[in-house]
C-alpha cells in the first residue's frame, strides 16, 4: 500500500498539486511538414512528439482485406530520462508500449473505411517525467486529427494512483515521475471519453478490489477533462488555419 508521503497533511501532493488536479497540458498540431499529421504535447514536464503517415498503400505482407492496418512505434530519446537510456527502441518496454498504443488507437480509428491501407503512427518521447504513455496516446490522437483520419471519438489516456488521507482512500490524478518512483499503484486508462468506453487498462503493483472503482472513476474523469483540453486546442488550430471562401453551404 502506498506510504503516507504521497499526500501531505494539507492535502498537497509531492509536486504541490491537489489530488484531482491534472498537470498543465500544452499542445500544438501540425508541427512538421513531411508527415501527413503531426502533433506536440506537453503534460507537465513530459514532452512527446507524434507523427502520422497515411493512410497509404499497405505493404503486401501486411495488407488486410477488410480494414486498415495500424502500425505504431513508441520510442524514447536517449536524453529523455534522468539516466541516459542506451537504446531508444527495440527493448521490451518500448515494444510493449507500442502494442498498448496500437490497442488504444485502433479502438478510436474507423478502420473499416480503409481496406488494404496502412496507417503508421510514430511517437517520440523527448522528455519523460511520468505518464509518458498517457501523453503519447493524447499526442497521437491530435496527430490523427491533424492528418484528417476519421475517428470515432477522441482517444485520451490518464493515470491515477491512490494515497491515504485521514484513514480514507484519496485517489490521485495524473501520476508524475516522483510519485511513480515512490511506490504505490498506478492505474493507466485509455478510453474514448465521449462514448465512455475503455480501450486499454493497465495497472502496476497491487490494488484492493474495494478501491478499484474509486481509482478507475477518477482516471475516467481525468480522461474527460483531457478531452476538453484537446478539443479546445483542435478548435484553435482550425480557427488559425481556416481561410475564407472555401465553404459551400446550399
Amino acid at each position, binding site marked *: 500500500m502506498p506510504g503516507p508521503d504521497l499526500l501531505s497533511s494539507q492535502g498537497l501532493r509531492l509536486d504541490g498539486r491537489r489530488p484531482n488536479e491534472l498537470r498543465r497540458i500544452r499542445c500544438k498540431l501540425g508541427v512538421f511538414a513531411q508527415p501527413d499529421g503531426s502533433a506536440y504535447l506537453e503534460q507537465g514536464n513530459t514532452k512527446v512528439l507524434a507523427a502520422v503517415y497515411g493512410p497509404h*498503400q499497405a505493404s503486401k505482407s501486411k495488407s488486410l482485406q477488410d480494414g486498415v492496418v495500424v502500425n505504431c512505434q513508441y520510442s524514447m530519446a536517449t536524453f529523455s530520462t534522468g539516466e541516459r537510456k542506451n537504446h531508444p527502441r527495440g527493448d521490451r518496454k518500448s515494444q510493449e508500449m507500442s502494442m498498448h498504443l496500437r490497442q488504444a488507437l485502433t479502438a478510436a480509428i474507423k478502420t473499416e473505411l480503409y481496406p488494404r491501407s496502412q496507417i503508421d503512427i510514430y511517437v517520440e518521447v523527448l522528455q519523460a517525467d511520468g505518464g509518458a504513455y498517457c501523453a503519447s496516446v493524447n499526442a497521437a490522437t491530435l496527430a490523427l486529427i491533424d492528418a484528417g483520419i476519421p475517428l470515432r471519438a477522441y482517444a485520451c489516456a490518464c493515470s491515477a494512483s491512490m494515497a491515504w488521507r485521514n484513514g480514507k482512500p484519496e485517489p490521485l490524478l495524473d501520476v508524475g515521475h516522483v510519485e511513480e518512483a515512490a511506490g504505490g499503484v498506478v492505474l493507466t486508462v485509455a478510453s474514448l471519453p465521449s462514448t465512455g468506453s475503455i480501450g486499454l487498462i493497465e495497472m502496476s503493483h497491487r490494488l484492493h478490489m474495494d478501491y478499484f472503482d474509486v481509482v478507475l472513476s477518477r482516471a475516467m474523469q481525468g480522461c474527460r477533462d483531457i478531452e476538453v483540453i484537446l478539443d479546445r486546442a483542435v478548435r484553435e488550430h482550425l480557427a488559425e488555419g481556416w481561410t*475564407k471562401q472555401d465553404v459551400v453551404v446550399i
Partner: protein
Amino acid sequence: MTRHVKIRLASERVNHSVSSNNELPRFYTPGEVITGMQDFMRGHGTYAEDDSLKASVAGVMQKVNKLICIRPLKSRYVGEIGDVVVGRVLEVQQRRWKVETNSRLDSVLQLSSVNLPGGELRRRSEEDELMMRKHLQEGDLISAEVQSVFSDGSLSLHTRSLKYGKLSQGILIKVFPSLIKRRKNHFHNLPCGISVIIGNNGYIWISPQEKSNMVEGEKDEIANIESQTVNRSERETMGRVKNCIAALVASKMMLDDTSIMFAYEESLKYEDVKDLLDTEAMLDVAFLTQHRINYVDED
C-alpha cells in the same frame, strides 16, 4: 547586402496565420453530434451512431441539399471523376502503370487509357505491352484525368487527350489537397511567361511555356526539347513562382491561378528571388495577397 547564411532564433519566429477572426464558421470535432435527424445523407467525414449523425474528422461542415460532409483541413487526396491530377509512375505492370497521386491507395493508368504514339485507334497488341516501358518509365511524371473510382477508393486515370501526358522539364511542388480549389480549368498559362498545372491531388507542376506546336510522334524533336536548356529569365520566373506558392502554403491559403498571380505580382518588390525564402518575406507576400483577394471579393 545578400548574406549566404541566415540563422534566426526561436524568439524571432513568425506566425504565419493571415486569417481574420471575425467570421469563423462552426467547427466540428470527432465524436461531436451534428444533427439528430435521420433524413440527412451522410458524406465524407461523418458516421451514424445511435440515431444521430456524428463527425469523424475535425473541420467545417459542407451541406448540399440533404448531403452533409465534414471537410478536414488536411487529408490525403480523395479522387472524383473528372479531376485533373499530376502523378508519378511507380511501377510498370502487365497492362498498366501504377501511379502515385498522394491518395491512400496507388492509382492505376491502364494501357488502354493512353494515347498510342501516332494517334492510332486500335486494340492494344502484345507489342504494345512490351513497349510500355518506352512510353512511361518509373519516375516519370504525368498529368492525367480521373476516369473512374474503384470500389475500394483507388483511382483509374486516363490521358486520352493531347493536353495530358508525360511532363518534361520543370519543378514539382507538393501541397495539401485541401488547399486546391475545384475549378473548370487546371492548366494555366500565367502572364509572366510560364505555365502551371494545378493538380487536384496537391501536386503542382511549373514549367516553361511551350513555344511552338509539337507534332506527336516526332521522337527526335521531343528528345531535343527535353534536354534543351531553359533560359535564365524563365528560370528566375519559375523560381519566383515556386517561392510564392511556398509562401501561400505556409499561410494555408487556397491556391488557384488568381492567387498565384497576385502573389507573384506582390513578390516583385523583392528583387532577389532567394529573399523570398525568408519567413518575414513569405508572410508579407501572403498577407498582401490575402488583402488583394478580399478586395476583389468585395467588388
